[in-house]
């Protein structure tokens, strides 16, 4: 039953074919069975999950109306706070911290009867593209345990690909939902900035961070999107408008007449041959489904990566200042003789990993007086140019498409000592965060050279998230028909047993 889609599981719970408790227990057993190999989870809250599941079962028994995903388990990225449940953001500096409140997304999940299994591994404070930067060790890609599951949300995507959970929450600052989805053969959506509340999402880069749904199918992602989306007075930057009709769009399975733009700058040099091959085939599938394919140019995308690596570190240098040992988390060197400032320094020295320190230093430098205009100021101008590129493109087409990531999953350790090579993983995903619009990654096949999943990125204008689901849903249906079932059927079982 753990291989079913979330929507099928929800239907089974609603119909009384299975209890949420049994469903949850099945996933907990699966985690117990395979997570030693995958290491998707940093914390499994078995007790809390079972209690939530029993509450859903009780509500059903009383004849209460259940929400569309009631009783279905979910894996929560460890960057999202859940009251009383350890939240580390993959960092030693938060080891042992139990948040005193729920993120808005968590509140919405709880209200919808979604069962939270636990917290998933991630690059420390969401800084990375491989989950190797977690202070608690890397997550392994279920398709090949020697490879990375993407990052920063590698734990969430790996939990889906390992059938430890049918749903997950990710967060995407430069591609942290989409790139892990691409390399694990799952679906991940970065909603429009402001489409999902950031309240309770531990900030990496406030103007770029966006929580979103992760799932194995487009429809499941849409169902989850509808639950977590919407305005929140606790997040001033959340958009005060209804959630786009993503579920209806996911069910349309029709792209006839849609104008689909292929971004010239996102492809070609630096992209793996098998990735480009699967992408080009997907373009032909869309053409075959009746979409009009138009090549568009976004000339300023080439500046997106440098701009991102000024804005994100700048904001992170400020956002991470609060980890100072005064009120929560790690405290190092408090011997009653040292000053508060000395304890702050020792704690931050011991608590942050090298990538986090690298970005704090970069950002501190970029915001310094005398450098601000040249760095942060220029980066903001690039941001405007990228928004202009998108606006020009969306004047011609309804959505844009590109490969999600230039390569398939690489080997653990392969790029660990080369930050720049690591940063290039997000070259196709970063422009969307800078502009604040929305994008989805869906699996589009296995690369012939390594047999690993390839992701296709669909990009839509702000608050047109429904278009992602319309295109994604249609493409997924076409692929499943061509492949004779979902891509996940081709994934290794991890246990050698039947799936």
């Amino acid at each position, binding site marked *: 039953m753990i291989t079913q889609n979330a929507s099928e599981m929800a239907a089974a719970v609603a119909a009384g074919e299975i209890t949420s408790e049994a469903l949850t227990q099945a996933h907990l057993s699966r985690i117990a069975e395979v997570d030693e190999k995958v290491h998707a989870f940093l914390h499994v809250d078995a007790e809390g999950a079972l209690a939530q599941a029993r509450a859903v079962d009780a509500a059903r028994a009383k004849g209460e109306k259940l929400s569309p995903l009631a009783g279905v388990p979910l894996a929560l990225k460890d960057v999202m706070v859940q009251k009383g449940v350890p*939240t580390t953001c993959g960092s030693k500096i938060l080891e042992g*911290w139990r948040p*005193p409140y729920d993120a808005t997304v968590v509140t919405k999940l709880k209200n919808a009867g979604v069962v939270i299994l636990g917290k998933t591994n991630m690059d420390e404070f969401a800084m990375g593209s491989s989950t190797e930067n977690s202070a608690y060790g890397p997550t392994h890609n279920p398709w090949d345990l020697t490879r990375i599951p993407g990052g920063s949300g590698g734990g969430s995507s790996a939990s889906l690909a390992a059938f430890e959970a049918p749903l997950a929450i990710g967060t995407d600052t430069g591609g942290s939902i989409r790139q892990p989805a691409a390399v694990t053969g799952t679906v991940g959506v970065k909603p429009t900035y402001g489409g999902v509340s950031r309240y309770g999402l531990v*900030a990496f880069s406030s103007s770029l961070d966006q929580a979103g749904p992760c799932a194995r199918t487009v429809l499941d992602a849409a169902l989850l999107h509808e639950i977590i989306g919407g305005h929140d007075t606790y997040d*001033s930057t959340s958009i005060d408008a209804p959630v786009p009709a993503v579920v209806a769009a996911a069910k349309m399975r029709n792209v006839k007449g849609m104008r689909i733009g292929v971004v010239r700058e996102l492809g070609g040099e630096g992209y793996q041959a098998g990735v480009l091959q699967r992408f080009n085939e997907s373009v032909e599938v869309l053409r075959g489904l009746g979409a009009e394919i138009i090549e568009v140019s976004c000339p300023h995308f080439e500046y997106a990566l440098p701009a991102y690596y000024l804005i994100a570190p700048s904001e992170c240098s*400020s956002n991470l200042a*609060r980890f100072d040992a005064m009120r929560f988390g790690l405290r190092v060197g408090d011997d009653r003789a040292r000053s508060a400032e000395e304890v702050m320094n020792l704690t931050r020295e011991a608590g942050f990993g090298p990538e986090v320190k690298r970005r704090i230093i970069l950002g501190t430098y970029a915001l310094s007086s005398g450098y601000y205009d040249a760095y942060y100021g220029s980066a903001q101008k690039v941001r405007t140019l990228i928004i202009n590129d998108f606006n020009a493109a969306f004047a011609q087409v309804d959505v844009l498409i590109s490969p999600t990531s230039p390569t398939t999953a690489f080997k653990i350790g392969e790029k660990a000592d080369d930050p720049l090579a690591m940063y290039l993983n997000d070259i196709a995903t970063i422009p969307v965060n800078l502009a604040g619009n929305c994008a989805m990654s869906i699996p589009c096949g296995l690369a012939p050279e390594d047999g690993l999943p390839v992701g296709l990125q669909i990009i839509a204008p702000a608050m047109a998230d429904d278009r992602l689901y319309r295109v994604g849903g249609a493409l997924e249906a076409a692929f499943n028909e061509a492949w004779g079932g979902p891509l996940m059927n081709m994934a290794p079982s991890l246990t050698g047993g039947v799936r």
Partner: protein
Amino acid sequence: MSEAMLDYDDVIAKYEPTLGLEVHVELNTNSKMFCGCATVFGAEPNTQVCPVCLGMPGSLPFVNERAIESTILIGLALNCEIATWCRFARKNYFYPDMPKNFQISQYDEPICFNGYLDVEVETDDGMRTFRVEIERVHMEEDTGKSLHMGGATGRIHGADYSLLDYNRAGIPLVEIVTKMVPGTEKYAPLVAKAYVAELRDILRSLGVSDVKMEQGSLRCDANVSLSPRGSGVLGTRSETKNVNSLRSVERAIRSEMQRHAARLDDGLKVVQETRHFHEDSGITTSGRSKETAEDYRYFPEPDLVPIAPDPAWVEELRATLPERPSVVRARLQKEWNIADKEMASMVNAGVLAVVMETVALGADSTKARSWWVGEIARQANERGVEVIDVGVTPSDVARIVELVAMGELTDKLARQVVDGVIAGEGRPDDVVATRGLKVVSDDGALLLAIATAIASDAAAAEKVRGGNLNAAGALIGLVMKATQGQADAAKVRELLLKELGQ
């Protein structure tokens, strides 16, 4: 280690001062600037906190609309332009009492800018108006408080450990910054004081703050620099922090001018630094040097959307502005028929508002004025507190004036009532009752005391009968003594003379 000071007259003979004033005002909103926490002063430590104002990971600020409204009102009252679009900014620095290690403030886009405030100062040539130009009025959040325990001074130096109270963290603060104020000459300390006093009156009339300097709801940083007379070269300024009374504003500026001048006379440089003012000695001492100036790495606060006050709303707010205190003063001066000097003394003593309230409660303006400027101001001065904080309210004074007018209290008894109120014995009627201060107005009791007096000093009585009214004094004294001072002397005199056929 007190520094050399030049005589004030010599300072003025040689140097020209330039003032700069930064005032922080805590708004009296019910909730904090960026969360829903209460803002009650003096609550148990860390009882008015939440994930937002504690800077818990994942929490986000949301703006208190009321604070924006209050800030715009302040800007309008200070003749400022109001921004049509502005943003909050983060001011980054590490400090244990600042939960996020950045303060949400405003940087290059203040919500109000380019205003002025005219203040009146009594000069050798009568009242003179000085215009203090306002550079900006902006919003920010207050920090928490560190309590340094175990040391002798309460300062961090020498303390064993520190406790943190975050109740104040996130309380809305408005910072009002003047442009440099030249041309105040020897009146610089008075102009500084008058500015803060006028500002305080305006803020009080707007109802946006408690403006209590001793509680820190109004905090003043006073800057001053000196340039050699006629040189046109601006001197190095020092910044005296948290000067917490009107009188201290004046003293701190004067003291700094004298200290700067002494250094300059000795060929020394004035160091650009923060100074601490000491109420007891009236001098400042060096605080943090600004030589290693902090780089606050300001950038627009990405967690908050820009503020774009609707111009129509701003005009609505403008229409609600109360009468300007200077206009109120001119009107009252006419109504109460008093001279410039008397008005100035009320303003100086910071009692105008309470006098107005007392009068509004029905008291005679002359009486109300004399109580506040006289006895109550004297008592406040003795205790080193502001008049409005000495513990007497306008309704107390109005009641005391009423009791005197009704003949229930003499002036002398009334002063004892004031003492009692200040001592915390309750409201005037409580003090009258518990201290038994009622005038003996019972004719029977008085006549009995008069008869006793006549009997005990027959000679004096005879003189009065013979037309020597001066001799009545001795008899009245006896009666007052017998009634322990609680009789109305005029009434005693009247009854006595009648008794003796006069």
